[in-house]
């Protein structure tokens, strides 16, 4: 059965593949480039193959282009989820379908999430239908402070979800780090430093490497973290924990740091900005969930941005395997803050960029993804209206220039029960 469904899915992918150099022009819509610039009324998005050729007001449309009329609609880049666990969980509480955390594994940093991402998981199709086209997918840390390699994926219906494998390493250095390291932040920091030192030892002579702290595989995985060739996504929330993470560069100057969560980031925003460290921040956290979140506020992202921090919306531990469709709602809420006295939000253009180009740039993929600028991958969504507004629906999703199915099992259930009363035969025959 499994083989059969795989076969069918692969066949569908082949059928959906773009014809060589096929050109499509989406015309008449309100075009959002996604780079923080203002929407363009009556713009055109020109796509050839898997790339955006041009987008904007005065785009010449080749005679042979297939035209899609988007008059009255909005056309945007697909949503880029800045931090997620999508594709790692089908049903949260069914452990066999949950690959986020390997707390009984002997490995940690070497765990590579690309092997766990399931492009056929239903959260992929549900969130694709809501306009989410790319996502940062991170393991959670299990037996150690390090969780392993994360990836950037697409949410296409084909069998190849991985855009970039080993895009980053993930580590916990806040409350979760305290717990996993043995019960103290001091333990987390000495563990972090010791593991990296062990990795250097490994590098000097792999053949004789023998460590009580670290498997050779994990040591090997930490080397690109030390030399900065692999990003390090660090989950911390409190102001003090953030400062201590920034200080790690004194000992490991090449670390390519990205903060995740950072509920108290606004309190030390100048330090984060000065360090040039970007943030994948939770948008609407505003409660002291723990003592690491005492000053959490929805104004966090706006204040960090005003201080010069490069910040995008992420969803760590916030239904991050199922509800990436909240990204647009969260961005809209940050716009809402601009009307609230004393609050700091984002302009509409900034808010949309925080779920499209900015997370792509933070992952160093802005040249390929996250906007409708020329040369970017053609991840395009057509919406019935303002994509951040709650009443808006998705009409079309393209990933890599390929028109995507918007069907999923939620829609099938909806259609089966649009009239709940069974007909002549039971509901099981409605399909």
């Amino acid at each position, binding site marked *: 059965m499994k083989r059969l469904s795989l076969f069918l899915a692969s066949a569908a992918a082949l059928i959906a593949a773009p014809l060589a150099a096929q050109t499509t022009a989406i015309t008449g819509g309100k075009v959002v480039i996604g780079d923080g610039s203002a929407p363009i009324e009556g713009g055109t998005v020109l796509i050839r193959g898997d790339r955006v050729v041009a987008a904007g007001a005065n785009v010449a449309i080749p005679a042979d282009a297939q035209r899609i009329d988007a008059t009255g609609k909005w056309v945007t880049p697909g949503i880029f989820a800045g931090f997620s666990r999508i594709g790692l*969980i*089908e*049903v*949260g*509480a*069914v452990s066999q379908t949950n690959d986020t955390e390997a707390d009984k594994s002997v490995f940690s940093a070497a765990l590579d999430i690309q092997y766990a991402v399931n492009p056929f998981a*239903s*959260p992929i199709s*549900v969130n694709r239908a809501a306009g989410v086209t790319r996502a940062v997918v991170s393991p959670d840390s299990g037996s150690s402070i390090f969780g392993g390699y994360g990836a950037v994926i697409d949410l296409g219906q084909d069998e190849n979800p991985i855009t970039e494998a080993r895009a980053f390493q993930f580590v916990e250095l806040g409350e979760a780090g305290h717990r996993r390291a043995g019960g103290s932040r001091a333990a987390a920091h000495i563990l972090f430093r010791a593991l990296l030192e062990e990795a250097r030892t490994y590098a000097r002579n792999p053949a004789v490497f023998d460590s009580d702290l670290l498997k050779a595989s994990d040591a090997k995985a930490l080397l690109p973290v030390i030399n900065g060739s692999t990003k390090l996504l660090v989950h911390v929330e409190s*102001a003090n924990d953030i400062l201590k993470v920034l200080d790690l560069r004194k000992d490991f100057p090449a670390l390519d740091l990205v903060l995740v969560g950072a509920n*108290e980031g606004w*309190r030390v925003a100048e330090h984060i900005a000065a360090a040039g460290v970007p943030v994948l921040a*939770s948008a*609407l*956290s*505003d*409660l*002291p*969930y*723990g*003592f690491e*979140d*005492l*000053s*959490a*506020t*929805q*104004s966090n992202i706006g204040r960090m941005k005003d201080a010069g921090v490069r910040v995008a919306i992420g969803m760590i*531990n*916030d*239904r991050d*395997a*199922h*509800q990436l*469709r909240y990204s647009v*709602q969260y961005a*809209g*809420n940050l*716009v*809402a*803050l601009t*009307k*609230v*006295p*004393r609050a700091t939000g984002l302009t509409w253009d900034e808010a949309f960029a925080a779920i499209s180009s900015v997370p792509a740039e933070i992952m160093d993929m802005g040249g390929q993804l996250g906007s409708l600028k020329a040369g970017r991958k053609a991840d395009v969504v057509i919406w019935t209206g303002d994509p*951040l*507004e*709650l*009443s*808006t*629906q998705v009409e079309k999703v393209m990933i890599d220039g390929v028109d995507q199915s918007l069907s999923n099992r*939620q*829609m099938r*259930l*909806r259609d089966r*029960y*649009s009239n*709940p*009363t069974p007909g002549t035969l039971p*509901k099981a025959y409605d399909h």
Partner: protein
Amino acid sequence: MKIRALLALAAGGSLLAGCTASGAEPSSASAAPPPSSARGGPAFPSTYRAYPSAPTAITGVTIFDGEGGKIDNGTLFMVDGKISSVGGPETAIPGDATVVDGSGKYVTPGIIDVHSHLGDYPTPSVDAHSDGNEATSPVTPEVWAEHSVWPQDPGFSRAMANGGITALQILPGSANLFGGRSVVLKNVPARTVQAMKFPGAPYGMKMACGENPKRVYGSRNRAPSTRMGSLAVERQTWIDAQEYRSKRNDAKPPKRDLGKETLAAVLDGDILVHNHCYRADEMAQIIDMSKEFGYKVTAFHHAVESYKIADILAKEGICSAVWADWWGFKMEAYDAIPENAALLQKAGACVIVHSDDENQIQRLNQEAAKALADGRAMGIDISDAQAIQWITYNPAKAMGIEQMTGSLKPGKMADLVLWNGNPLSVYSRPDKVWIDGALMFDSADAQRRPVSDFELGQPGEGDVK
């Protein structure tokens, strides 16, 4: 954000009886509920008093009345803590009234959450604060949620300032088949929970079916470990409660039994049953059990599969308290669909949008808006005003307080929210919140925003949040 409370089995059901605070200012309580103690007056009576209010008119405003009505360019006048008049621009305003210009703004009844764990699973979510599940026995009708509520939970203020919440039901969690009594609160800061208790609100009782009780107790090798075990324990409990109830008025009544008092009050119809239940087939089982023992389920909570039996729920007159779009976090939430609320509305069933969450209680208006949009997208015709009813009048009705609050009708408590735009838009937030006519939140006034004891002297004290 963290979702510990949910994983900790949040579920609903509670009960509130006879807390007629003698001499309480808001005296609009309808029928005096029966005393909740077997002898004498009510136990743990409400000490809530309405805070000072000024005669206030809001003019030029769009009004959603909470019962499906909408008035453009409307006027609302409140005095002495009560709604006095609601109408068009011709509505008379006394000369001494404070006038609030509502142009471009919207008024709704205060938002009401039928399912919250603020106070019994407060933030910070540390172990010492885990007071929502008395998970030592699957049958604990004797516990009262109000005895777990910490009034200093910062979540109450967020629910008011960002969500316009003016009343809410705090439930025990869903670890147990019979979780205990709920408590209905006015969302006002207070030193004691008694000073938050909604005067005259009936009690509810929380029940739970499905995965949680069988997981919690099955893992300890005790009943219930299966769904059939759950029903067996529940039915036997009702049989015992029936016996207790029948002997209550004997010459030699049985010794007071806290749990059975609550259960008997359910059978008397004085306590409302709030039943956490996800799956359609299980709801049908619970309905049959309620008929076997002669009580009524007021609302199924987390009813993600209600859309499969919307016709049955409409016929039985049972409300469904639902999320807009939560799904997939456990097996019994696997078949959730975003059109659930709209399909229920289409079938003529009672719809409530609830939170069970300290974050989403801050935007129930947005959750209702999403559920509305998904319904419209499949061609179901629902008005904006009807969607507002999902978070105002309908939860009030399920909590037994609809005669006092939940809609903007003359004589009802002046519990209302002035929004800075359409509350069904993502771009709108509460501008002002009144509870019993008292201005309890004003976005323009940093002082008119509650700061709990816990937050005082901490980083971020008094911030906009």
